[in-house]
Each structure stands twice: as C-alpha cells, then as structure tokens.
C-alpha cells in the first residue's frame, strides 16, 4: 500500500452524488425492496447493512444496472440511470464493482483482468499497461501481474478485484460483501486498505455488508435495512449511540434491552420502572397512551460494583446475580440475572481482570444519557 502515496491529482475523479428515490423491486409476488430512498453524497462511502434477505444486495445490483426497477428512480448528479421504464445498461454507467466471489475471470491473467475495463474504454496498449501497473502497485500486487486467478490466495484475489474496480477511475464504486470470504485477520486488514483507497481516490462508494464492524469502520454513513425497507440511516456514531429500534441496536453492536413501565416522559427523556428500580433514559417523545417502553443500553456502558457498594449519583442502578463469566482475552463478559420482572438477563462487558465470581451479588450502574429509548412497540416480550 506504500505506493498509494504516489497518487497524482489526476487520479482522483470528478465525483457526483448518487441518489435512490423511492425505489421498489418485486419479483412476482415477492417484494425484495419496498420503497427506499438513499442519498450518497459525492466522495463519500455509504454502507448498506442488514440481515440476509433485507434487500441490500438487490439495491446494489439495481445501482449497478444489473436489475431493473419496479418503480422509483436512481440518479447520478443530474443524470437518470434507472427508472421503471428502463435503465442505462451496466456497461455505460461508469462504475466499478467488487463482487462477493471477486468474479475474477479465470481464463485471464491478473493484468488482463485489471486492464479489461480500460480496453473496453478504448485506451491504447501502453496506457493500459501503465495504468494496470499503477493500480496493482496501489494494492501491492504488482509482482503478480502475469499470474492467473487460480494461482492466487483469497486475499490476493481480493486485491486484484479491488484494483480492477478502480482501474478505470469510475464515478461510483460498489462493494458487494467483498470481505465475507476472507479469514478474520485478513478481513480487518483489507477493511482499512479499502477505506484508505476510497478516501484517496475520492470515489463515491456504496458498500453492502452484513458485518457491523465493517460498516462502522468503513463508512461515512450507514443505512440499516430490514425486510426491504430502510430502518435507520446516519453516521456510524449516530447509529451506534442512538439506535431507533431494538433491531438496529442489536444489529449494530451488542445491546441489552429493558422493558420499562412508563412513569413520566418529555421530549428529551423518559423515566420508567423496572421492578423496584427507576430507570431514566434519554430519547424521543412518546405517545401519551404508552404504558410500557423499551430502552437499550450497551453492555460496555454498564459498570459493575459489589451490591453492597453505595450508589453513584445520577446513574441508573439495578442489582442482580452473576450467572456466567466468560473471558475472551481483551474483554470479560458477565451474564447477570437481574432482580425485576420476568427473567431478565443482562450482559455486561468490562476490561479484565474479572472481579466477580458466578453467584456474586452485584450492582449494575449506567448513565441515563447512554440509555436510549427505542421506538418499538412493546409486545409483552423482553430480552
């Protein structure tokens, strides 16, 4: 990646905003995408995240022009790419894409793979050769230019796929779960390399993933999808810190949800009871008839102390009994049965060393500012 520093100003592209306006996609009776609008500002990287079947890959394929739209439209700058009546074919969209399977052409060498798009653009052989070695240098693969994909490791194939995607300096770069076939160590390394390259080239990018870590690490903006709809979008910090629903809270990071009986609330905060305890939370206004509401609190936001210790002022406080302690290197996980309604088990993560044994009585304290009211309706079930 050292060679990335050698990038000239000419290698950055004239970026454009990418917009999806109320896009629908159905296959027969099955509605894969049910009306989503997404704004990808120029030069930024937006992640689409959600469980499998949420419509994120379909959305990406519609952006690439590989799937027609049922309704809505997709535009880049002021140019219409797709609507219900038709689409600019993929080859005229000036996009680059990294596929989940890499989709390298097995009958072509690394150089031919990377140079393919340039050839289609009509560049001459010398220019192609120069550009190919430039981008291969960027991804540290310049030594493998004559190899065939089957002779490369997974990580190397991934780098070639990345080089191929950026070689023709596309307006838009698309990533379809590009790291899901790599092992954990490589995945983390590639994550940074991708982000680095995208920022240096300033290419407007859309990144589809089901991994919250990738989304958080890579994106300027995260769009969380579920069942064909956008559930929440925002910066990584917004999504993490102020999830709107239990689904978002659970999908982006670990969380505990508590069902509270409403005592009082206003625009900024709400107070509810959890058994004998009062829990204060921050969040949006709620319907006046709401009897119960959900709050989310991250395991890492909770501090543990001996049940006998005196309460800290201004913090929510629950008590419970340690059931399990799991030590995973950098983190100690406690699973704690709380005194309260139902059988609520809370998860708490602290840095080592472990200070409590299973069976110990502990107090759980957490900041009301970090206790977030969720928009979900309570259906009588809590975690």
């Amino acid at each position, binding site marked *: 990646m050292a060679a990335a520093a050698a990038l000239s100003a000419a290698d950055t592209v004239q970026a454009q905003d990418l917009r999806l306006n109320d896009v629908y996609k159905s296959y027969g009776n099955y509605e894969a995408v049910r009306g989503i609008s997404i704004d990808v500002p120029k030069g930024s990287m937006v992640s689409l995240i959600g469980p499998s079947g949420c419509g994120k890959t379909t959305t990406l394929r519609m952006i690439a022009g590989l799937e027609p739209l049922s309704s809505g439209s997709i535009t880049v700058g002021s140019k219409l790419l797709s609507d219900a009546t038709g689409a600019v074919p993929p080859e005229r969209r000036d996009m680059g894409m990294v596929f989940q399977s890499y989709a390298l052409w*097995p*009958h072509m060498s690394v150089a031919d793979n990377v140079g393919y798009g340039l050839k289609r653009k009509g560049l001459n052989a010398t220019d192609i050769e120069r550009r190919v070695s430039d981008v291969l240098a960027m991804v540290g693969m310049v030594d493998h230019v004559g190899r*065939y994909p*089957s002779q490369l490791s997974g990580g190397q194939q991934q780098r070639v796929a990345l080089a191929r995607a950026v070689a023709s300096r596309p307006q838009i770069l698309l990533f379809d779960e590009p790291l899901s076939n790599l092992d954990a160590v490589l995945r983390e390394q590639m994550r940074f390399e991708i982000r680095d390259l995208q920022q240096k080239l300033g290419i407007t990018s859309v990144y589809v993933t089901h991994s919250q870590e990738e989304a958080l690490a890579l994106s300027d903006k995260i769009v969380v999808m579920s069942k064909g709809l956008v559930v929440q979008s925002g910066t990584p910090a917004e999504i993490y810190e102020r999830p709107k629903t239990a689904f978002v809270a659970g999908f982006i990071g670990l969380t505990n949800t508590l069902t509270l009986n409403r005592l009082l609330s206003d625009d900024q905060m709400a107070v509810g009871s959890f058994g004998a305890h009062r829990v204060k939370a921050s969040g949006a206004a709620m319907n006046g008839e709401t009897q119960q509401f959900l709050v989310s609190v991250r395991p890492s936001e909770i501090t543990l102390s001996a049940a006998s210790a005196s309460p800290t002022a201004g913090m929510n406080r629950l008590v419970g009994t340690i059931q399990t302690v799991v030590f995973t290197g950098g983190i100690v996980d406690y699973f704690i049965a709380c005194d309260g309604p139902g059988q609520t088990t809370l998860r708490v993560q602290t840095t080592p060393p472990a200070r409590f044994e299973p069976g110990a009585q502990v107090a759980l304290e957490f900041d009301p500012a970090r206790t977030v009211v969720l928009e979900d309706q309570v259906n009588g079930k809590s975690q």
Partner: protein
Amino acid sequence: MPKPGRVSMKLTRTVTALACIFAAAPAFAQEGPLQIYSAYPDEHMKALVDGFAEQYPDVEVQISVQPGEQLISTVELELRAGRPQADVIGLNQASIASLQAAHSAFAAYKPAGLEGVRTEVLDESGTSVPACVNLYLIQYNTNAISEADAPTDWAGLLDPRWKDQLALADPASSQSVHSFLWFITEHLADEGDDYGWGYFERLAENAPRLERSHGTIRDMTASGERPIAVQLLANGQTSANRGDPTSLVWPSEGSPGEISSFAMFEQSDNQEAAQAWLDYIVSPEAQAIMPDALGCAPVRNDVDYTFPDGTAVSDVTIVPVDADFIANEREAQVEAFDQAFGR
C-alpha cells in the same frame, strides 16, 4: 472451474474454421456430370461406366445406387417435390412403365442401336431402352447341398426338406420378384396344381425367408444361412466371380426374364449426355460386356453369350415377362401373396 488453456482455445478456432468450410460443402451445384440413378449395384455399373467413358471421354458419369423398390419411391417423392435429381434411371422395364404411367416423367428416345435388339424385349412406347435380360433361377450352396440333391425345377422347391432353408425376395418391397410371381401364377397357371397361387401356399409351408433385396439373399445362400434361393442371374454371376461355394439350377419349366432397362428423365438438363448413354447401352460394345457388367443376357441378336456355368443361351427357356401386367397388377399380386403366406 477449470482454466481452459490457450491450446484448447486455438484448437477451438481451428475446429470452428474447419466446420465453416465443411458447412459450405453440401451446397455443391447440380449440373455438368451425367447423373444416373441405378437399381443395379455399383460393381455391375462399373464396367458399363468404364466402357462408356472410352466412347464419350468428355462426359463425367455419377452413379447413385438404391435397391429397386426404394429407388422407385425416392423418384416418386422427387417428382412430387418438383424435379428428379438425376438424368437417367436404370431399372427394370415394368417399373419404368409404371412410373411413366403415374408421372409421365420420362422422355421417349429410340437409339439407332435398337434395330439390332430382339423384338420381344422392346418397349413399344420407346420410354425405356432394354439393356439385358435378367433371369430367375435357383441358386444353392454346394457345401450344404450336393448336386444330386439339388432340385431341378421350380416345383422342386416345394419339397418339405427345404423347410427353413429357402430365401425369396419379398414382393412387398422388391419390384423384380414380381416377374417370378407372374411366371408362376400367370404363365404357368394352367400347368397343374403345382403352379398358380397354390405354389406359393405350399411354398409358405417351407417358411422361406423373405428379404428386401436379392443381394442379401445371395450372401445368405453363400454363407449357408439360407442355402437355397430363388435368385436373379446377375447375383449368381457375382457369386461365381467371387468364388462363393454356390451353383445354379436352370429350372426345367423355364425362367422368367426380367428386362433390365434404362430411361431418361423429361426434365433432365443434360439431354445430350443422357441420349449418349442410351445409345451406348444398345451398342454392340456394351452388349458384349453385359454378362460381366449387369450380369445378365444381352438383348442383341448379334452378340454371343454363354452363361457362367457353360450353359448356352439357346439351351435355356427364357420367357419374356408381361411388363404391363406386372406394372398394373402389382398391388393385387402383393395382396394375393400376403394371403398365400398368411400375412
């Protein structure tokens, strides 16, 4: 997925290119050579073609051989489609007559050489030109049957000891064998109980094998699979040339003579060459080689001929067949035959 090597890609291109060249090949034009449909085998036609080439070195001759019955239907279909694919056809006189009756497909032509031809074999209408007389006789395998045991007449085939040993061409699919049917059921009809349709009813009891072609029967006789058969002279000739362990019997009742003939198509775009072929067929030169060529007896009076076993033509009773009867009564004859054989 396997990576296809460059070699295989080059191979592909070569194969594709070759295929394209081949693809163009079947579209060759149809003009120039004299094209002859023949019911007579290639090996028989060869001597005639060679002799013709000596007299007409500029004419290229192409032969396409099909068994008689199949050739008739091929030509009928081609006539229905618009035009025949050949200039001349070589077939027995009766078949040519029936084709002519149905389609008027042939052009009448009387070569000068016909003057030397025996009148009883001539086609009055001039549609077909007689080439030679092909006789029916009995062929038997000498390994399986001694000369003393061999039958001496057609009636001898009715002997029960020939059960499962006989072969005969199937009248449903052979045109020639209708000459034999005519001979037994019409010509000899008044000669007693051994003849007429009663002959075939009794022959059926010997379960002769009915084959489509006389050539197949010849090989079955030679191999011993069906050691005794009703056969055409031409095939006996082939057996003799090849050294098969077979011998011929000249039945005492006489032999029906089928007239092997040629005729030219009206629509031929090679009329001159076609006429040259017909001229050649009745020329003394062609008639002289006829026994070696079509394997049968010449039709000219002025050509001497001795059968392969030394029998002279004058020693054999040759009965010219009634071509009109055979052409007109074909279906009725097949039906009567089927009845006699219980099919």
